[in-house]
């Protein structure tokens, strides 16, 4: 048994073990050094964690869009980041006008709901058009074709919105009601906006989960994702279910767009790219096609990105480690693809026919 394992152990394996080992070593040594240096107090770590969860919730919401579409079409919808951007960007205009008239500060709840409604409607419209115009005609073509189309559609949408709304950064208005923080006793405080992001994201995700598990459409979505032909033989209108899947994913992306904009206060036509690719990473991390996986992957990535740079790198004497958060996120993607390509909750590729 041991001999056979040794015989199969190739140079590539050795190299991969070395890479994996040195990364683990780096992480452990860095973390120990950071903690021993003691530059950061419990309050700092608490802030990192809360911010990580908030950011991760947004990633999770976007990741669900990738995973839902992948589950049903076995295709990565690379234009999903633009679905997210379109909602956030369009939401800006209503947010801005409501803020100027003072409505947003007088009726923050109605105001926020209106922003969500506009953003979600925009994202859903964009996604439905995308599916109808760009993807449906290619349903039966080889898998590379819709993938390239998705990348093209992503650019098309970016520059369409640049043409419509301009190329400058726009500052999302502040909402008075979301300004400030709550004290949790002692030195711990939590930003109101972060609470809103986490609670809203949790509600949306719970809603999605119940929808997919309990409703007739949700069950049909699961059936279509397993076997389209048989679903059609049961009388399920497969195209209609695919459209509804895009709508669901887009609604979550629109909501994520508003939460993201409220948290980071800035929108532009290119804003979808980084969160989009992070969310895609999160979806792969959790196991693409798997709904709880996308949620878990998003939270995990958000936390890692927030806590990781400081924890792993600060102690190694690397200046401004937070600048390296994207390196950490994508290193994690590479590691997952190497050591567990199916993701945390993913099933074996053989059964998923991916």
């Amino acid at each position: 048994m041991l001999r056979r394992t040794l015989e199969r152990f190739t140079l590539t394996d050795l190299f991969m073990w070395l890479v994996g080992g040195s990364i683990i070593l780096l992480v452990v040594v860095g973390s120990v050094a950071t903690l021993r240096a003691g530059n950061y107090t419990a309050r700092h770590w608490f802030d990192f964690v809360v911010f990580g969860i908030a950011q991760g919730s947004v990633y999770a919401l976007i990741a669900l869009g990738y995973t839902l579409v992948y589950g049903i079409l076995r295709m990565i919808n690379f234009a999903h980041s633009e679905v997210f951007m379109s909602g956030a960007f369009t939401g800006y205009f209503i947010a801005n006008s409501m803020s100027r008239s003072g409505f947003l500060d007088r009726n923050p709840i109605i105001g926020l709901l209106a922003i969500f409604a506009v953003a979600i409607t925009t994202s859903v419209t964009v996604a439905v058009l995308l599916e109808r115009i760009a993807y449906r005609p290619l349903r039966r073509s080889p898998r590379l074709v819709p993938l390239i189309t998705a990348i093209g559609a992503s650019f098309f949408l970016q520059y369409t919105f640049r043409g419509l709304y301009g190329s400058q950064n726009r500052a999302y208005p502040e909402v008075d009601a979301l300004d400030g923080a709550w004290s949790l006793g002692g030195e711990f405080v939590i930003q109101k906006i972060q609470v809103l992001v986490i609670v809203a994201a949790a509600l949306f995700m719970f809603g999605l989960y119940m929808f997919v598990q309990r409703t007739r459409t949700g069950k049909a979505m699961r059936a279509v994702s397993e076997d389209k032909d048989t679903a059609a033989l049961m009388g399920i209108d497969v195209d209609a279910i695919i459209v509804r899947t895009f709508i669901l994913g887009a609604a979550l992306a629109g909501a994520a767009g508003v939460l993201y904009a409220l948290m980071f206060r800035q929108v532009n036509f290119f804003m979808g790219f980084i969160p989009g690719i992070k969310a895609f990473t999160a979806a792969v991390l959790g196991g693409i096609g798997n709904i709880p996986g996308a949620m878990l992957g998003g939270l995990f990535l958000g936390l890692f990105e927030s806590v990781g740079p400081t924890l792993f790198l600060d102690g190694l004497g690397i200046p401004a480690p937070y600048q390296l958060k994207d390196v950490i996120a994508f290193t994690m993607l590479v590691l997952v693809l190497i050591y567990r390509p199916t993701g945390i909750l993913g099933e074996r590729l053989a059964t998923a026919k991916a």
Partner: protein
Amino acid sequence: MAILELENVHSYYGHIHALKGVSLIVEEGEIVTLIGANGAGKSTTLKTISGLLRPREGHIRLNGEDLSAYKAHDIVSKGVVQVPEGRRVFGRLTVTENLEMGAYTRSNASETAQAVERVFHLFPRLKERHNQLAGTLSGGEQQMLATGRALMAYPKVLLLDEPSMGLAPVLVDSIFDTIKQLHREGTTILLVEQNARMALQIADRGYVLQTGQVVLNDSAQNLRQNETVQKAYLGIS
């Protein structure tokens, strides 16, 4: 008027001409069987009737209404339901959820619940396992589920594609018993089978397909006596 009628149907897989002018008739309340070797076009015929393949030529009529323009899911709501080859249950849905998918064309919850009860009455095994994922069922149970799922839509015409495939002989008998029972209850059945002997025992009439064409069609009794059929499909020399 025949309940289901195919007239000179041609279908293609890409460039492959799979059905070369198939004509057949199923009368109300009959069991009609299609027999033939692998690749003769039996499953293709069912796929074309169900709308998974579009006939490039010819007509498919249900009670005189042309079905060729409808999509697969519309054909189900017209009353033609197929149990696909290899069962194809939704493995990650529970037994009950699978059955609910069979009733997708009716949105009425109490009707669906009634239909589920009917299937559970027909297949008590499924009732015991109603909360289990369909992927964990045995082959025989999956065939019961696939059949029950199709019955959820109360089909006028039931298309069965190789229901006995890969099942132990005991289970084959029980599947054929179920088919007979459905027939007694008045369901019209078009049955595709490798097991020509069993199929010709329960069928009223049969069609023999060869390379996409009907080469013989007669009553099941005559087909059983037919020398060519005996040689080619029943293993009697």
